[in-house]
């Protein structure tokens, strides 16, 4: 059981590094670092949410980008209606995501394996094409947000560092919540339902209800990531819901190692930094990124965290 304390250690260090990042950026006089890091935090939230159902529930959703889009559009739609507060944007996102997740989750959970992957993709594509047709919000062109969300009526998030720390606080809060969820009775039932649904049924748990609840929680968490992404880029478009984005989220989770939450956060961080770094190196960066991805899958069964952990 050495793993658990190690994970706590690793989590402390990773989050401490995130907390200190704006100071490092200031010392280097490179404000742009905070801008990239905010994006990383937002994707880390989404990857964390996906890991909750992928790693613990065995549900490989290939349509999680839809929730990023729902979150982003809730910022655009509510802002235009004159509602600017971040907390209300998050609430709107959660409400929208919950409705979408309950309906699509209930249908999708009838299927398993590759069929589940494809049906979640199908629903995400429907959402994508819906927003592409939404002329009032620019359709495919999207909309530029003239201002970011406000916090308690104040435009404090216009400051990049403030936005960064807000995203950081949300990620930290959701991480701790997710850890608590996985350790709770609910989390154990979820894992049990993945391992052996028949037995869970036999001892009186309905896997479906637990799986659907987890699916909805995960969708809602991902939509919060969408709210943060919209604020970070000051821009909202259906491109957030592109199926590639769903694929990239899965890549992040598996990159970091599935089923340990921290791996998802680390995976999102590494994948985005790698992309940023390789793009500076060569315009043919997808070639190198693809190569790394293939090598990680072939030679490290638990993603990068597994790769490092084995060398402890």
């Amino acid at each position, binding site marked *: 059981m050495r793993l658990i304390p190690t994970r706590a250690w690793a989590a402390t260090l990773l989050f401490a590094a995130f907390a200190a990042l704006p100071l490092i950026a200031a010392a280097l006089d490179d404000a742009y670092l905070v801008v990239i890091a905010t994006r990383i935090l937002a994707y880390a939230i989404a990857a964390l949410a996906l890991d909750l159902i992928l790693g613990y529930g065995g549900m490989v959703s290939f349509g999680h980008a839809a929730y990023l889009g729902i979150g982003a559009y809730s910022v655009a739609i509510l802002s235009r209606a004159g509602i600017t507060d971040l907390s209300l944007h998050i609430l709107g996102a959660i409400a929208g995501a919950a409705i979408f997740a309950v309906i699509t989750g209930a249908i999708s959970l009838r299927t398993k394996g590759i069929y589940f992957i494809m*049906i979640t993709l*199908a629903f995400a594509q429907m959402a994508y094409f819906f927003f592409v047709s939404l002329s009032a919000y620019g359709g495919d062109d999207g909309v530029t947000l003239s201002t970011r969300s406000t916090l308690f009526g104040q435009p404090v998030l216009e400051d990049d560092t403030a936005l960064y720390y807000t995203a950081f606080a949300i990620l930290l809060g959701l991480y701790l919540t997710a850890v608590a969820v996985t350790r709770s009775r609910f989390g154990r039932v979820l894992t049990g339902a993945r391992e052996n649904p028949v037995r869970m049924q036999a001892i009186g748990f309905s896997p479906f209800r637990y799986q659907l609840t987890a699916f909805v929680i995960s969708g809602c968490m991902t939509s919060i990531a969408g709210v943060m992404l919209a604020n970070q880029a000051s821009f909202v478009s259906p491109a957030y819901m592109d199926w590639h984005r769903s694929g990239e989220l899965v890549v992040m989770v598996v990159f970091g190692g599935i089923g340990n939450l921290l791996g998802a956060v680390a995976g999102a961080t590494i994948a985005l930094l790698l992309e940023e770094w390789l793009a500076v190196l060569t315009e043919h960066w997808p*070639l190198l990124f693809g190569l790394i991805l293939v090598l990680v899958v072939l030679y490290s069964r638990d993603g990068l965290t597994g790769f490092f952990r084995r060398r402890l």
Partner: protein
Amino acid sequence: MTNLFLLQLLNGMQFGILLFLIAAGLTLVFGIMDFVNLAHGVIYMVGAYLAVTFSQMTGSYGLGLLLTLPATLVIGLVLELLVFRKLYDRPHLDQVLATFGLVMIITEGVEIIWGAAPLSVQMPDLLSGSVPLIGPLRYPVFRLVVIAAGLATAVALWLIITRTRIGMRLRAGATNRAMVSALGVDIKKLFTIIFAFGAMLAGFAGAMVAPILTVDPGMGESVLILAFVVIVIGGIGSVKGAFAGALLVGLVDTLGRSFGPIILRSFLDPSAAGQAGRVLAPMLVYILMAVILAARPAGLFGART
């Protein structure tokens, strides 16, 4: 109107057969071997690019097509040896990820070798005209060739899987690898052959569509999702299912596009009907898939889940 409906029916079937042609290699590798190969689309793309290059070198589309077949077979062999072989025992998720990486590598490689600009292949004059159908309506000759190629591929696949020894071993190997190995069948070699054959089918499809579709670095990705939709609707593990799925997708997409707005207009006012038609048309295929999977969680003809 009736004429147009019949023609659109033909167009829908034609599009379905085109989709089956593209999905055929995937049916084999994903449907029978239960291996999720996202790289199928890029191999199809490489096939189209090779057909362009070989056609230019030989000055003949037919020769270009013939040369493409062994070339993609070799590509399939190499990929199998380097990557896929290591992934057979892995969960679907690992297969998805590794082949996603291959998609990035091969797409970028194609851009480096052939450039980002779309290319074209010269069609032989014999096949480039159109034949009269009904009244002013004409049908392109090459479309008939594509239909013939798709049907031939379907029949050949079905025969190989159900009527030959290799097909029998393949089905057995996919069901119980250890048992078939124990019976003295070299399952590794069998899978290598099948995989290379699947790549060749993808290359064949790429070469076949090159004269009617754009040959550019995005072409593989644009068909990948559709190809998966076709197989999943049909049910994994069934050539019959993939064929039915392809026809269904082709028909629903084509007929929905052309007659959907007319149907909507009968109970909505014209502007609302136009609006609804535009929102629904691109979703049709996905709605079809969601409805089928909700009703039959293992697809139309699928047994395994």
